């Protein structure tokens, strides 16, 4: 066998190599094993609720997610946080069960139950030891369909959210991230930032209305995975979710259409005494359905997405300004967002900004992504692909993503061909089309006394913001 022979040869070489202190060569790979994407089966309950099931029999666990379209992106500006608290409250009382009942029962079953609101979708999740799946799904179904929104629980949650909204103003990472999106989206929905006031404005009726409008079987997808099969799982799902019906029709949620930034601006937020400056910059890009999606993906991997990408190699491994610097693309409903973020030593703030700007200028100009960089990052993506599908959880997440955003059903299958088709020219063309310096918003959170002169030297117009991302008067 070829491989065995080469191993023996290497062993012989290695022994002498060690003695002579010459080199041990990089090894050849073993044969590549076959890989098939784990499949989900599609089903529909008697009430029309769509179901996807993914089997995995490695451990006696199961997990389910009920995903609905609609999340914090639907929040009115003056009630930012509404979807988040509405969904949070759903396991604080449902049907005949109180908050404590739900918690006690779920725990007693060796199960977990949680709720969360994202930007475009909201989720109720449950899971645990297989033997108690049926009973746990019964509790989950109550949480999904019959939340009671008790006033005393809201009083506790509201106080906590108000305190959190105030507390986050002391955390530079959060302040920087929220200011960035607030300025980028400039008054459209994702820019809405939760505050003590917005939480104060939310009522129980608001939450009930959100639940009634969004949690409907015709606006939901039930994903179930684990040590199960459709034949045994479907009757249980039908028992708990099949009779869930509501009146009317689901609202179609319109994608936002925020405007591009016309002129690049530096937004600055003072954090006296900060040990580092938190830098974030970026702008709008296209969607995942655009022709250059995979080209931008590889172009960005080479520019700033990977540990070995230009930005991190420069700022961290060469200059030592930071613990890490990365750029990535994010695709909510509407246009995607490309951004870079890093935290840098305070006295290296100006130098870091200059290096980032130089990397952008260079990649768009004299030093475009080269053949090796494209080949390297395509190889990384292609080789790493099977590992992405190791757990049921990630497989379910991908199916949820496809459903929420209306991606084509063969979305997963498009990935490898899409990435492998990227060329040097297409990667650079995507970067040139999407990374337009005039459209980039910059934010820095840092110690004014130490960094302001650096910001002035950087050359962009500076607008100072308060910690909630609002322009400070007089600027």
């Amino acid at each position, binding site marked *: 066998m070829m491989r065995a022979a080469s191993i023996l040869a290497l062993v012989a070489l290695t022994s002498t190599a060690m003695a002579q202190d010459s080199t041990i060569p990089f090894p050849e*790979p073993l044969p590549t094993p076959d890989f098939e994407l784990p499949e989900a089966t599609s089903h529909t309950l008697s009430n029309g609720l769509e179901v996807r099931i993914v089997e995995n029999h490695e451990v006696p666990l199961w997990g389910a997610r009920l995903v609905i379209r609609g999340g914090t992106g639907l929040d009115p500006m003056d009630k930012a946080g509404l979807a988040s608290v509405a969904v949070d409250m759903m396991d604080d009382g449902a049907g005949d069960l109180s908050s404590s009942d739900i918690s006690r029962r779920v725990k007693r*079953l060796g199960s977990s139950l949680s709720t969360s609101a994202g930007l475009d979708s909201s989720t109720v999740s449950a899971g645990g030891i297989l033997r108690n799946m049926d009973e746990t799904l019964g509790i989950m179904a109550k949480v999904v369909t019959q939340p009671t929104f008790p006033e005393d629980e809201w009083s506790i949650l509201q106080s906590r959210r108000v305190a959190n909204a105030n507390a986050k103003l002391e955390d530079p990472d959060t302040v920087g991230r929220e200011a960035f999106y607030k300025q980028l989206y400039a008054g459209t929905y994702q820019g809405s930032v939760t505050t003590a006031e917005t939480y104060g404005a939310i009522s129980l009726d608001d939450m009930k209305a959100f639940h009634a409008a969004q949690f409907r079987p015709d606006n939901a997808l039930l994903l179930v995975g684990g040590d199960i099969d459709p034949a045994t799982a479907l009757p249980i799902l039908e028992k708990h979710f099949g009779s869930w019906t509501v009146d009317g029709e689901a609202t179609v949620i319109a994608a936002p259409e925020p405007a591009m930034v016309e002129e690049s601006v530096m937004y600055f937020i003072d954090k006296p005494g900060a040990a580092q400056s938190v830098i974030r910059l970026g702008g709008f890009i296209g969607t995942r359905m655009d022709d250059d999606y995979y080209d931008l993906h590889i172009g960005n991997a080479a520019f700033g997405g990977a540990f070995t990408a230009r930005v991190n190699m420069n700022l961290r491994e060469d200059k030592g300004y930071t613990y890490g610097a990365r750029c990535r693309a994010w695709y909510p409903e509407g246009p995607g967002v490309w951004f870079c973020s890093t935290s840098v030593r305070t006295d290296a703030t100006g130098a870091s900004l200059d290096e980032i700007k130089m990397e952008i200028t260079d990649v768009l100009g004299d030093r475009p992504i080269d053949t090796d960089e494209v080949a390297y990052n395509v190889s990384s993506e292609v080789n790493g692909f*099977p590992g992405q599908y190791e757990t049921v959880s990630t497989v379910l997440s991908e199916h949820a993503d496809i459903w929420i955003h209306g991606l084509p059903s063969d979305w997963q299958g498009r990935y490898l061909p899409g990435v492998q088709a990227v060329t040097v020219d297409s990667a650079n063309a995507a970067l040139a089309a999407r990374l337009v310096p005039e459209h980039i918003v910059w934010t820095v959170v840092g110690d004014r006394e130490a960094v302001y002169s650096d910001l002035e030297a950087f050359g962009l117009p500076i607008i100072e913001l308060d910690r909630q991302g609002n322009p400070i008067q007089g600027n």
Partner: protein
Amino acid sequence: MSRTLCLMALTALIGCPKPTVPTEPAAPLEVVEPEMTLPEIPFEQYTLDNGLTVILAPDHSTPIVYTNVWYHVGSRDEEPGLTGFAHLFEHLMFQGSANAPGEYFTPLQEVGATINGTTSFDRTNYYEEVPAQHLPLALFMESDRMGHLLEVLDQDKLDNQREVVRNERRQRYENPPYGEAYKKLYEMAFPEGHPYAHMPIGSHADLEAANLDTVKDFFRKWYVPNNASLVIAGDFDTETAKALVDQYFGPIPRGEAPVRRTAEPFTIAENMEVRQYDDVPERKVWLAYSTPGFYQDGDAELDLLSSVLSGGKDSRLYTALVKEQQVAKDIAAYQSSLGLGSLFVIQGTAAGDHTTDELVAAVDAVLADVMGENPPTVDELDGARANFEAGFYSGLQTISGKGDTINRYFMYSGDPGYMGADLTRYFEADAADVLASGQQFLMAPRVALHIMPTADNVDEEGGAQ
């Protein structure tokens, strides 16, 4: 029914909770009890002539392989003046070795690997998850830095990574509010010079003082094959893996067996309190008690007790402090296990205008009640146990989870297959055991760290630190 008993007990303790849904009682819960089948991870363990422990755990579910090397050295082994050194060294392990000069990430990321290293009090580990066909590359890379790091380590790399680590310190511990709370808590809970009295991140001064000679001495002392364990988990052929391990790790010479820093079991002798005023938004408090180390008597019992105290919205501390008295915004209790002895930590944030002193008083009342008139119930403990059981299985869902679990068991218990015995500890601890552990370890002296907004620092004498 035990659930009702529990409710009544709680009612006696904290007053009757306002019923939120005035309907007939909910249907009784139907629980399927466990049949005591213990999870296990099939593995094969052997030792190379140079002392390297090798543990193979094949799992062909996904075409990936996870390699994980644990060096049995952590921040606890650092000498005074060298705090943060084990972690700084971990960074230098990614700066290239004689036969793979350049960034450690570069050849591995090219084949789609997930790569990292972590440093804790007790150990330093390095891992890569690679597509199955690239097992030779992962073993080549790991072996080369075990055998040939120093040939290419130079001052520039040290200077650069020293800066990176100092930035990591700023980013993770200095810039976020409360970022250095644990540093202070461990300083308070362990006596000066104790292996756990300083955090793995170390101090700026010690990091600045690190020089190339000390780095090389550290490597020669600790990074020898006889002080490491290599786990390979995932989709591989055992004979192929053994041949590759022999090929790449076999030639590395055995070193002198390093003697780890250790410490006699330590117990906090008397209550200590520190009040800090800082640029923070809320009043928080951390209470820490001396408790038994990993897998020692009482360790699992305290895990179970932590679940009774703060696991979920029906837990004792949440019910009393957050829901009923509303003195806390959040409350958490957990056994933070380490090899030489653990801390049981109770951490809370005061709600509204309440003080951390009120919060602590409420915690003490709950503890007194749980250790006295209303001990943990069978029902509460069954729930806690079931959750730990699910957690064990959950850790086996990924190949990396299996690999980490095996190496952790090997290092702390000497038996990579300790999982069944570990879970048995949770199954066998009964209510009396849990109560006894609580009474022994939580009705004892503790340290209390209060961190409060600067604006609170008025009319207090000698409080500020």
